[in-house]
């Protein structure tokens, strides 16, 4: 596997301009001869499909939901960063670039991050023009707020529904192209495999979730905008349907998978309440501005009503350990501290896996009305889910899997190691390194979709890459047959266990051994347990009904099948990355006081995994990450 990142020459601030100038163009009359498949309709996919359609390419866009407007980008609450410096508080493209590289714990690719910071300003302009109702000041200009990991106010937001509003913007642009016929939208369709011809991506095979039809589609290029793999943990803040199948199938067809062990765990989610739990709900990080995190000092106090626990008997552990950042310590650090307190037996709520987030100080200082104004919708959501009133009793929170920084390896053009197959948004690996800062995911999805891919895809199309094959050709047919066979295998398995029970068990293994803290013994154990579970799955799975109609059990079984393989890959990557960085915490590598310890000498690289065949151990390749513009330094939040 050759990893040529194709980083353009020149100083960092000129790379993107140089690259756009030296990139090949496709003349307008020729664009309509090309067809591009876009899988996924979230911020990355929706933006890419709309923009490429505007340029004149013929687009087939696919999503598994009933309409493209439901992709999980919609759930993002907080905001989107842009280096506008509207606040005159010292922000700049270079500062956003710097913060993102540092926040990623020096494991991202500088050139990509700088480009992201550059186009961030265009994203805001574009969204405003589309009618995204961003928050405004009384003078009518755009409002900003600050967000985790930054000292400037550069976050644009639309109440607590920024993702929803940005997605509606992309969806409306997409709908306009659907109306002109430039984009054909295929809803309730799930990509189950990638079609390659002479090593180039030339199509996909999908299953129609409404009627079961399995079909091959061909095109000149394929864009995977299929999100992250957080649901390998079963419980996460992802939508229940989010899955790794598209990306994992591309990996099996030759696309390198980079840094699967980089997962982000968000500190403020509503804790698990019991076995019935199907997903976890995030409570916006902004709550930590006014809430104080604590657990009882003495584990015997845990069952007590928190309001009966005296001030002296409480341990405000974040304030104690990180006096300068206090309750606003970054996500990875806050999450690990919550786990530490619960491991110590001082957790609260069901199973002792929760810590208190207490607003009583803020309420007595500012009044209940102010708190209601700031967080009313969140308190209401908390009340719906837990039945508890957080104005009168501290909230209970616990960390949960939220985002995945790893993904398909891509070069500067966003192309994977399979020519013609591109990966955008959360599905790729390039911009967030080992940890993502708040309000950066929306920025990256839209950057890739609106501004990067329309400029870089020409290099492939106008180069040697263009050219399509027939969906009835031998290559497509072969993939089609293998997908049919896979679906048949799932429906014909005569076992007793539901796919959900396997997914749950896999999630338990992943969370236990590859969650907030990992170590060699645990990861090795996890790999063994996953292999056993997979073997059992193949024998004892039960999928009712057939593949010829709407069958949610079959859909889940297929996704869980791929998660079982992928979970092992994640653990393998975590095992080989013998250092701690960002969201990846190896217990063997910590400082005296329990902080993450990076090993830049040996691990300042992206680990890229190559599929070597069923049952074979995948091969690990590396792309060195060079830091020429940001000096490698220790992240400290003390």
């Amino acid at each position, binding site marked *: 596997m050759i990893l040529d990142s194709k980083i353009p020459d020149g100083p960092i601030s000129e790379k993107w301009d140089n690259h756009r100038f030296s990139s090949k163009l496709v003349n307008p009359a020729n664009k309509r001869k090309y067809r591009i498949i876009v899988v996924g309709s979230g911020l990355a996919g929706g933006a890419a499909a709309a923009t490429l359609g505007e340029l004149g390419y013929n687009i087939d866009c696919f999503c598994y939901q009933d309409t493209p407007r*439901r992709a999980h980008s919609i759930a993002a609450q907080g905001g989107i960063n842009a280096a506008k410096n509207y606040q005159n508080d010292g922000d700049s493209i270079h500062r956003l670039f710097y913060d993102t590289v540092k926040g990623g714990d020096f494991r991202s690719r500088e050139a990509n991050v700088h480009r992201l910071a550059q186009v961030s300003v265009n994203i805001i302009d574009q969204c*405003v023009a*589309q009618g995204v109702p961003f928050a405004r000041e009384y003078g009518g200009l755009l409002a900003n707020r600050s967000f985790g990991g930054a000292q400037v106010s550069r976050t644009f937001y639309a109440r607590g529904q920024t993702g*929803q509003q940005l997605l509606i913007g992309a969806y409306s642009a997409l709908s306009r192209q659907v109306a002109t016929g430039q984009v054909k939208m295929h809803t309730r369709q799930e990509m189950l495999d990638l079609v390659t011809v002479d090593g180039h991506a030339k199509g996909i095979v999908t299953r129609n979730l409404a009627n079961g039809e399995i079909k091959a589609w061909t095109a000149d290029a394929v864009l995977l905008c299929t999100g992250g793999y957080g649901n390998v943990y079963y419980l996460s803040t992802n939508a229940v349907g989010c899955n790794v199948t598209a990306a994992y199938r591309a990996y099996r067809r030759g696309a390198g998978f980079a840094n699967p062990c980089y997962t982000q765990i968000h500190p403020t989610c509503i804790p698990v309440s019991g076995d019935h739990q199907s997903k976890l709900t995030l409570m916006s990080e902004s709550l930590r501005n006014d809430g104080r995190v604590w657990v009882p000092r003495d584990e015997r106090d845990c069952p007590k009503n928190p309001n009966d626990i005296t001030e002296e008997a409480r341990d405000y552990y974040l304030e104690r350990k990180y006096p300068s950042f206090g309750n606003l310590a970054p996500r990875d650090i806050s999450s690990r501290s919550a786990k530490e307190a619960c491991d110590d037996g001082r957790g609260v709520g069901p199973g002792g896996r929760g810590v208190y987030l207490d607003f009583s100080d803020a309420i007595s200082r500012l009044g209940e009305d102010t708190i209601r104004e700031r967080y009313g919708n969140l308190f209401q959501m908390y009340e719906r889910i837990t039945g508890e009133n957080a104005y009168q009793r501290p909230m209970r929170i616990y960390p949960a899997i939220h985002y995945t920084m790893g993904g398909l390896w891509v070069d500067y053009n966003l192309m994977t190691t399979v020519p013609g197959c591109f990966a955008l948004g959360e599905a790729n690996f390039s911009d967030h390194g080992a940890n993502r800062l708040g309000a950066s995911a929306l920025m990256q999805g839209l950057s890739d979709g609106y501004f990067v891919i329309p400029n870089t895809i020409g290099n492939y199309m106008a180069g040697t890459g263009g050219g399509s094959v027939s969906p009835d050709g031998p290559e497509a047919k072969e993939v089609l047959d293998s997908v049919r066979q896979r679906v048949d295998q799932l429906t014909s398995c005569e076992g007793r266990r539901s796919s959900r029970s396997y997914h749950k068990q896999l999630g338990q293994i992943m969370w236990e051994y590859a969650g907030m803290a990992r170590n060699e013994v645990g990861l090795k154990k996890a790999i063994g347990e996953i292999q056993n579970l997979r073997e059992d799955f193949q024998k004892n799975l039960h999928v009712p009904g057939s593949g010829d*109609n709407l069958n949610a059990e079959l859909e889940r079984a297929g996704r869980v099948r791929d998660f079982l393989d992928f979970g092992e890959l994640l653990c393998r990557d975590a095992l080989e990355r013998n250092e701690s960085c960002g969201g990846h915490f190896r217990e063997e590598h910590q400082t*005296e006081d*329990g902080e993450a310890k990076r090993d830049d000498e040996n691990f300042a690289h992206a680990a890229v995994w190559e599929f070597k065949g069923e049952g074979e151990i995948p091969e690990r390749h590396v792309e060195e990450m060079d830091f020429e513009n940001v000096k490698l330094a220790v992240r400290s939040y003390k």
Partner: protein
Amino acid sequence: MRRWISRTSSWPSGVTSDFPMKLTLKIWRQSEEKDSGRFETHRIDGVSEDSSFLEMLDQLNEQLLEEGVEPVAFDHDCREGICGMCSLTINGFAHGPENSTTTCQLHMRKFKDGDTITIEPFRARAFPVLRDLVVDRSAFDKIIQAGGFISVRTGSAPDGNALPIPKDESDQAMDAAACIGCGACVASCKNASAMLFTAAKAGHLNLLPQGKAEQEKRVLDMVSAMDNAGFGNCRNYGECSASCPKDISLDFIAKLNRDHAKAKLKKLFS
């Protein structure tokens, strides 16, 4: 300070509810669009009051699998009240009896031990049933494709602050834009009208200066797409707004009527 070693990070398992509920569920079953459909009754035991309505259905489906009965098909995705994919008419109410709530955010503590719960799909001519509780709401997409956008090519936008927009206008647009496109408004209307959805979508864009240029064409095209999709007429019953999980106001319907009349008149005299 102490270095730490993981003890366990497990989720609580085997945690059972203090007050498990027994319920009788009357659920709509329909194998495909052409099937005439019928109610099926199932009993379920040990439902936690902390589980969501959809988690209760997950539990039912696991039980049906063991009994050798095909599970009940229903739509869902984000399960946090924002994607608009979940639906269901529960005891006659779209998204169930709790106000301002999607089905995924409805929790079982709102029901009592021993309750009988009737669960149907969203019913409307423009929303054909695909299977059991799953309906096809693509008619909504058709309405948006007719004009629910501002025609702006990527890359051609002026600076975001070039056009100041008064805060209250922007806030009002946001009130309309909060619509999640779930279809509860249609399901709760006895005429199955899509007026609240269309009004929210058109209103969001018409309220903003960026959307003014295309306002007249937008309202005419969206309303005719709505009519063509087979939705009924609006009679101002207001059930739509009462059942809306995002509390979209009836005022937007008044605004759409006004904008539509103006656009029609202008067309007539031009």
